[in-house]
């Protein structure tokens, strides 16, 4: 379009023509209409030069233009990189993982004991994984990696680093130092992943309660399993358990000591708040490290407190006595224990029995099987079964861990009088130690059954419970429990100033075929303290204790479990804020009881007994009604 017709006369050269073209400047100015002869030679040349001049001018402009454009780019580059850089949100998020904030955002909530001590916590960790498709030389990469992580198996590592997969975990938990070292190796195809791992800082101390998690952080046992949903759903809300780790430690140590001393194969212990049902401590030995559930044996994983069912033995006499009191028996009444009971091919006898009629306090203090059997039989099969049902002894406990067991109880059809008699002294029924502890707490707390709980009960809230025995029965029972410790088989459990009460229980273990095993026992103690206003129930059990010299050849609960319970109480009572109380007349009046059951302060004390008493509960088969008066007299001096 700017085509210049060849014959157009050329005007004067552009005034701004490039100075570089020196020859042109030397030429004379062209006349506007030069003669043709001259023009024919010079005009094309001049035109060409004029065009070139113009072109040169334009080239300079273009060069300036481009210089400006690139200058602008350079300026913008400086702005974008150094002078006014953009907020590198995405780039930074991509370039490195955010530094863990103070409270690391983890996917699983922390579990603490009642005082906030951490029992289980998820910590952010770095996992190492590989993209095998990006690894050029798997054996070489494996060898280099093993320089930093020598615990990895070479063959397995090579296998994981090769193949067509795009993802393979190499290590699940690296320390920051290891991360830096792996990074320094500079092996392409290795990547880090932010992961988290569950830690149990208390190790084995409360392993059975906490349970554990699998490699992917799913709860597989204990609280971790039963609260799996809750721990995930509210990862920032700590789950506070009723457990007190200090009590747990003391209980575990005491039980362990008793096991060691008597060569037991295991043991169990429970400390429970009698008024709320909160489990402050629950020990099952042997135990395992919750951080390494995989390494635990079945025996270690077995929670003797909630899954182990054992014949409770004499500790069950507390239930029998409570039941009898509920059914009208008076504390000064009793039963004959002079002759063995024979039912069919079975014979019931006493262990080191007194061989005479015993008043109710004596029955417990001397732990008479015969009298207890009579007592239970006097109440009757149906009422006995109903009572045990009300006491929760026939059902699974509703504590919040998945590992619970159903007690072994005769069915309604097979439950005959003989069963009632043996169950009366704790045989022919198997319950968990937690059942026994719950029963002990119920009897001591005034008669209200509360299901044991592992969750902390907020202070000031009253947990729902069922009244199963009367306040009066509970009070008499407390006195008798105290009597067992002061004058009976539980003397080893006494701790001055804490007014411990309780009941021992030694039971023969049953073999796989159902028969009793000789010299395989369960030695247990269930107690509570302080008996004038019980706050805590304590249960200690040793599985298969062997006699030793210090116990003078005995391996019964009085020698094994009661001293262990005493040790527990002496250590945990101060932890729980209880000072030893001096013996005051008020306390003495509140918790003592004579062996003959007479003269309890506040109850009708038939000090000079009328002859009418013992008729009520006696069975036709027993003789106590006739024998009673003389026996009572003979008992008084004790």
């Amino acid at each position: 379009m700017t085509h210049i017709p060849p014959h157009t006369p050329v005007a004067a050269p552009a005034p701004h023509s490039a100075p570089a073209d020196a020859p042109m400047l030397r030429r004379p100015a062209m006349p506007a209409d030069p003669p043709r002869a001259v023009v024919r030679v010079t005009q094309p040349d001049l035109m060409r030069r004029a065009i070139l001049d113009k072109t040169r001018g334009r080239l300079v402009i273009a060069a300036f233009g481009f210089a400006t454009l690139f200058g602008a780019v350079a300026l913008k580059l400086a702005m974008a990189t150094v002078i006014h850089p953009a907020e590198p949100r995405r780039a930074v998020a991509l370039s490195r993982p955010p530094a863990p904030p103070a409270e690391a955002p983890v996917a699983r909530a922390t579990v603490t004991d009642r005082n906030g001590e951490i029992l289980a916590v998820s910590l952010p960790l770095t996992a190492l994984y590989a993209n095998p498709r990006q690894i050029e030389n798997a054996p070489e990469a494996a060898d280099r990696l093993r320089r930093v992580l020598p615990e990895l198996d070479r063959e397995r590592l090579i296998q994981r680093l090769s193949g067509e997969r795009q993802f393979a975990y190499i290590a699940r938990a690296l320390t920051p130092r290891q991360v830096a070292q792996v990074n320094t190796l500079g092996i392409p195809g290795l990547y880090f992943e932010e992961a988290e791992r569950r830690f149990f800082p208390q190790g084995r101390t409360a392993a059975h309660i906490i349970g554990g998690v699998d490699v992917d952080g799913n709860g597989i046992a204990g609280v971790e399993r039963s609260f799996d949903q809750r721990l995930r759903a509210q990862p920032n809300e700590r789950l506070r358990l009723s457990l007190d780790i200090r009590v747990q430690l003391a209980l575990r140590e005491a039980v362990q000591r008793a096991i060691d001393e008597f060569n037991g194969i295991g043991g169990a212990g429970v400390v429970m708040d009698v008024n709320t049902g909160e489990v402050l401590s629950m020990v099952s030995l042997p135990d395992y490290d919750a951080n390494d559930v995989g390494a635990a044996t079945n025996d270690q994983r077995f929670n003797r407190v909630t899954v182990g069912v054992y014949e409770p033995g004499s500790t069950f006499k507390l239930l029998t006595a409570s039941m009898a009191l509920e059914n009208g028996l008076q504390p000064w009444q009793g039963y004959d224990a002079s002759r063995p009971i024979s039912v069919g091919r079975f014979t019931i006898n006493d262990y080191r029995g007194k061989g005479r009629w015993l008043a109710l306090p004596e029955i417990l203090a001397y732990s008479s099987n015969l009298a207890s059997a009579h007592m239970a039989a006097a109440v009757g099969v149906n009422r006995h079964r109903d009572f045990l049902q009300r006491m929760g002894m026939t059902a699974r406990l509703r504590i919040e861990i998945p590992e619970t067991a159903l007690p072994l109880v005769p069915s309604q059809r097979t439950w005959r009088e003989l069963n009632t008699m043996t169950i009366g002294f704790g045989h022919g029924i198997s319950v968990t130690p937690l059942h026994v502890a719950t029963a002990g707490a119920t009897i001591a707390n005034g008669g209200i059954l509360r299901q044991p709980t592992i969750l902390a009960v907020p202070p000031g809230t009253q947990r729902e419970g069922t009244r199963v025995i009367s306040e009066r029965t509970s009070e008499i029972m407390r006195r008798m429990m105290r009597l067992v410790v002061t004058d009976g088989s539980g003397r080893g459990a006494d701790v001055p100033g804490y007014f411990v009460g309780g009941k021992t229980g030694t039971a023969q273990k049953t073999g796989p075929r159902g028969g009793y095993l000789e010299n395989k026992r369960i030695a247990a103690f269930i107690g509570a303290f302080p008996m004038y206003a019980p706050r805590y129930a304590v249960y200690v059990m040793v599985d298969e204790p062997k006699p030793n010299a210090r116990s003078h050849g005995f391996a019964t609960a009085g020698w094994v479990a009661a001293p262990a319970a005493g040790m527990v109480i002496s250590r945990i009572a101060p932890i729980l804020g209880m000072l030893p109380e001096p013996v005051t007349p008020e306390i003495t009046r509140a918790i003592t009881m004579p062996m003959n059951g007479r003269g309890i302060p506040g109850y009708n004390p038939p000090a000079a007994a009328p002859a009418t008493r013992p008729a009520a509960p006696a069975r036709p088969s027993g003789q106590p009604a006739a024998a009673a008066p003389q026996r009572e007299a003979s008992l008084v001096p004790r």
Partner: protein
Amino acid sequence: MAFSRADTSVLGRWWWTVDRWTLGALLILIGFGYVMMLAASPAVAERIGASSRHMFFIKQVAYLAMAALLMVSVSLLSVRGVRRLALLGFTAALVLTAATLVVGVEIKGARRWLPIPALSLQPSEFLKPFFAVVAAWLIAEGKAPGSKVWGATIALVLYLTIAAILKGQPDIGMLIVISAVFFAQFFVAGMNLFLVGAVGGIGVAGAVAAYFMFPHVQSRVQRFLDPSSGDSYQVSVALEAFANGGLLGRGPGEGRVKNVLPDAHADFVFAVAAEEYGMVLCLVIIALFAYVVVRGLMRLLGESDLFVMLAGTGLLTQFGLQAFVNMGSTLHLIPTKGMTLPFVSYGGSSVLAIAIGMGMLLALTRRRTGTRAGEDADPAAPAVPAGGLR
């Protein structure tokens, strides 16, 4: 290279006549292309699930090697050889470009590629340099005193043909480059300023019309003016990459933007370079482009052949404009327009076409023995009547 001054072999003559500084700058750019592919392409290859992480890289290394070879080979040509090559190449490229409308493969809604085994060819890339040379020849021919060829008119007809084809593909970006180059050539050829203004006005009017006619143009401009108004993801991420890079960069391989930007190896390779190597290296890249373009244009001042000047202008404008648009888009200096960064971005057709273009430039600007301003040793040069200066 060591050639004696007395060496009269083809290579020897070439060595002493070629513009070695420009050649050096171009080879350095090719080297950067190699480095940037090493940085950016494995991440992209992995993201799109390519069979090998190094797919893009190996391909591009082959292309870059071919490009260097092609550039040097083309620069061996004489001016006449360049013109012949350009005519042949232009014809072939025009036919192939037209063919894309019929047999082209459709990628992302545009038919720009020809399905040739082992590489997908984008013929319009080759059209750019060849048309620049052909148009320069036509304009220069038309401007020659005494010429009866309506060169400019023919050039305009060719241009309109190309424009129609490119609009059909559609490839507006390519059309803009070709238009700008064509305009620059007329401008340098001495188009009168009134016409410059008029064409500029038409250009502005066209841009405004495009803004109102094409919704995607409108949205792109709006996103440029107000990044928060729409999805400006790529540019925001690119700017963060620049910020992340800072003065000296994160270090080789430490860039992250390449993992997220779909075009990290092509249109946004400049951002990858900035993140990994920082402002300093980016300034070097800018300086190299500016050096090649500005030095090339200034060197054209010494030429006396209008064809050489116009062809050089066209080739340099294309080269510089493409670099500017690419870097400007990435830096949010201008609205986003997908364009490759010469030699540095991924793309076989682009690299080879640019190599041919720069080869032709080097060939045209070689010092020709005995020529000075006002003279031309090329017997095929049409401008000067044989007896003119006798």
